[in-house]
């Protein structure tokens, strides 16, 4: 079971994602953004960072990287794609998940540890999360405020497309609509979230809750590999 971590120029959590994917039991390889093939990766992670400096709009330039065609194809085939932080922004810009991520309401970069409520456990990204458990992990972003026109937001909620919500006493770190921290696409195989599960994958770092999400991803992808569609 191979997890491919896409490296854009300016990605800076790629090494963290590789490390965490390995902790979750996967073979992990990095995929340079100029490649157009996925080197046999069964699941993809678009990691955090500042692809292209996040200049213009976060994710706006990265979505045109050559590898994005292969990412879309992989998603269209039902392959798993997880976008973390900047990866979420790129997926949103590319239209692979709904919505847009804009400047935090505070207009500041926010780094803090938050609690994440997992809205569904019947997805490939959350299957290993025990019932009722909230996950502790850091957020670190300047443009994480999730927006979607009201009607689309309603249908997103109706189809249970909101996978994660901020659930901290200090509240929502960025002003996101409906406290949305992460969403899943209609088909259920592409997920984006702003918090960083890969940075919360070892107790020595303060939490290993994030590993549950990566384990879910790895187990789901492995199951899909075992039973080819």
């Amino acid at each position: 079971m191979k997890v491919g971590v896409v490296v854009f120029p300016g990605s800076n959590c790629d090494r963290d994602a590789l490390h965490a994917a390995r902790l979750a039991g996967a073979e992990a390889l990095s995929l340079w953004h100029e490649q157009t093939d996925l080197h046999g990766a069964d699941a993809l992670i678009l990691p955090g960072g500042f692809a292209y400096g996040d200049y213009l709009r976060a994710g706006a330039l990265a979505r045109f990287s050559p590898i994005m065609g292969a990412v879309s194809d992989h998603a269209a085939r039902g392959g798993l794609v997880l976008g973390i932080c900047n990866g979420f922004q790129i997926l949103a810009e590319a239209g692979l998940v709904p919505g847009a991520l804009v400047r935090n309401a505070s207009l500041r970069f926010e780094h803090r540890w938050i609690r994440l409520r997992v809205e569904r456990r019947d997805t490939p990204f959350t299957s290993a999360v025990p019932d009722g458990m909230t996950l502790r992990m850091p957020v670190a972003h300047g443009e994480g405020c999730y927006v979607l026109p009201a009607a689309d937001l309603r249908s997103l909620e109706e189809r249970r497309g909101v996978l994660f919500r901020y659930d901290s006493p200090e509240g929502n770190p960025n002003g996101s609509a409906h406290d949305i921290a992460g969403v899943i696409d209609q088909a259920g195989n592409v997920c984006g979230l702003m918090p960083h599960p890969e940075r919360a994958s070892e107790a020595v770092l303060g939490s290993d809750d994030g590993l549950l999400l990566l384990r879910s991803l790895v187990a789901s992808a492995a199951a899909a590999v075992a039973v080819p569609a």
Partner: protein
Amino acid sequence: MAEFRFCVSVMPKPGILDPQGRAVEGSLPYLGVDSVSSVRIGRRVELTVEAATESGARTIVERLADDLLANPLIEAWTAEAIV
């Protein structure tokens, strides 16, 4: 081939909240300004296009604006030639 300079203005769509604009409004009282309102902040992109005609250049600019410079979910753009 000739060179044409264009400017693309990208503004948050009406109804999309603009925290930057609001922050500027919020700081106006400290500057002793009370006659300014409805501040909206967007981006201005200037670029040079090489094309045979101005309308050919405009086509390229409009494509760029649609695909890259603005996110249609939240932003609207206009483009004009700069002289």
